């Protein structure tokens, strides 16, 4: 793997909250155009890792290298401008702004911040809304959307920033099977159309196994496995990590059987 193929390097990142070690010496690389699944039981440190990458938290140790540049500890808005966009696990719509205005904020302050005028931002935002299927709601207040739509709005806002790297934090959680299928379709589509690299945190196992090129597994803040979905599904350590959650373990087992 030559270095120009790598868009993101997470190098030995450690993040502590008091005595709790949320991330412990986590390292991995992401190739351009890749979809990387980030999984692990609740509390494994996945969202913390996202927050370290986006600058919300400063890591105690380690580095984050994006497109060859050390971005460790830079403020979130600067990192966004460099081309990383994130959706929130717990949706954070700007409720008293319209759906279109929500997405416009992404465009105005994203990768081309200060170069995008209001009219252009409107067009970029509308394109993103079309991609995620929210264009019909562009004039509604964001507060009126249902959960699935709010998750898609998170995605549209992130896409409006015109990022190179998209971090998706449980965009599928709480959605029904049909919505999950639709959302996966959308993610695949935008990834191809916009030549994005994606890291997605996901608990919906069949979905993440299905869409990811590679998977990184965190457990108690450590990386315990990394590989293609088949390897991960058959990794004993991963299965053990999930055994505390019988349903998920069962899903792994089922998958092994059907293979």
């Amino acid at each position, binding site marked *: 793997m030559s270095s120009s193929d790598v868009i993101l390097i997470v190098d030995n990142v450690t993040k502590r909250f008091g005595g709790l070690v949320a991330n412990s010496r986590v390292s991995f690389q992401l190739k351009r155009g890749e979809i990387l699944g980030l999984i692990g039981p609740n509390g494994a440190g996945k969202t913390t890792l996202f927050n370290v990458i*986006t600058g*919300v938290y400063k890591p105690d140790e380690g580095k984050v290298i994006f497109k060859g540049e050390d971005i460790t500890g830079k403020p979130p808005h600067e990192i966004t401008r460099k081309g990383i966009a994130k959706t929130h696990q717990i949706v954070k719509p700007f409720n008293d702004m319209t759906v279109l205005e929500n997405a416009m904020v992404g465009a105005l302050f994203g990768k081309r911040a200060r170069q995008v005028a209001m009219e252009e931002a409107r067009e970029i935002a509308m394109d993103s809304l079309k991609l995620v299927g929210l264009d019909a709601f562009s004039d509604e207040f964001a507060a009126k959307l249902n959960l699935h739509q709010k998750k898609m709005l998170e995605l549209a806002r992130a896409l409006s920033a015109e990022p190179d790297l998209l971090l998706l934090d449980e965009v599928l959680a709480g959605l029904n099977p049909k919505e999950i299928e639709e959302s996966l379709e959308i993610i695949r589509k935008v990834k191809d159309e916009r030549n994005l690299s994606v890291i997605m945190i996901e608990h919906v196992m069949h979905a993440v196994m299905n869409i990811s090129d590679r998977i990184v597994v965190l457990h108690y803040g450590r990386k315990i496995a990394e590989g293609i979905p088949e390897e991960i599904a058959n990794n004993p350590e991963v299965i053990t990590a999930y055994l505390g959650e019988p349903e998920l373990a069962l899903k792994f087992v089922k998958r092994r059987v059907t293979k």
Partner: protein
Amino acid sequence: MLKEFRSVTLGIIIAIIVAILVARVLHLTTLDTLMTIMYFMGIALSLNIIMGFAGYVSFGHAVFLGLGGYVYILLVYFLEPLNQLQRAGFGIGALLVSVIAGLAAAALAATVGAAVLRLRGAFFAIATIGLDFTILYLMKAIVPELNPDQFFGGQVILPADRIVDKETIFNAFFIATVVLIAVNYYIRKSPFGMGLTAIKEDEDAAEVLGVPTTLFKILAFSLAAFFTGMIGALFSLNGGGVDETLFGLNHSIDMIVMIVIGGLGTVLGPIIGSLIYYELYDLLLVHYPGVNLIILGVIVAIMVLFFPEGLIGILRRYKIGNVRLRDILE
């Protein structure tokens, strides 16, 4: 089509500005009345920049009113060139001196803002009240030292040769008001305003979306302070002096109430709110002296409880025919 309707907001603004001019030219009312209206409009529009757009309730905002007033009055009291300047150019001179007062207020806001704007909600409000009292007592301590024979208790009264005629002050007030309306309108329509509104809605999400939240908040706070300082300066000039009452919390409350009555974060809200407040204040004072402030308080409480978006905010919910009012009322 929408664009044409959007100009309704501009139409209302221009109508109000023209009305003030007409009243001035035809002497429909006294200059003092017009200046009082512009004073109320001015302080409401100033605070609107940080409270209306960014959602930070600056409860001690009178500190900038007081500081602006003191800086202006002391400048023209002690510096003869500035005393000359404030009489020049049919109000332009006075406006320029008031810009210096505004800059002093903005400098204070920028310095303190870096610290207090980390606080959110009630804590920010309390911090600004603390700032108000700090500067007030600082002024009470320093000002009498400047001229112990004259400045008893920190009160500065301009001698006759430093007072400016009301026509000149009116012109300065008028230009300041027009600029302030334009600034509010521009912010409302600009990426800066979008960023501030995003901060108001969810500051953490705004930051992650790329809004430079700290910078924007300090900018908004400084702008709000700058204009409040200018208004405080011209208000004091018109009063022929300044004293500590200009730091009073009642001024801060006036600003907040006008914005809340009119509609937070819009351009028309503070303008309409200040007109209503001014009328209400006068009416109640004339018809119910003694209990006027109690009645006003009850009205405000009802507004906040049941119509927190203010008059323009309520109107923006409705449609007239095919036209949604929120497309035409900004």
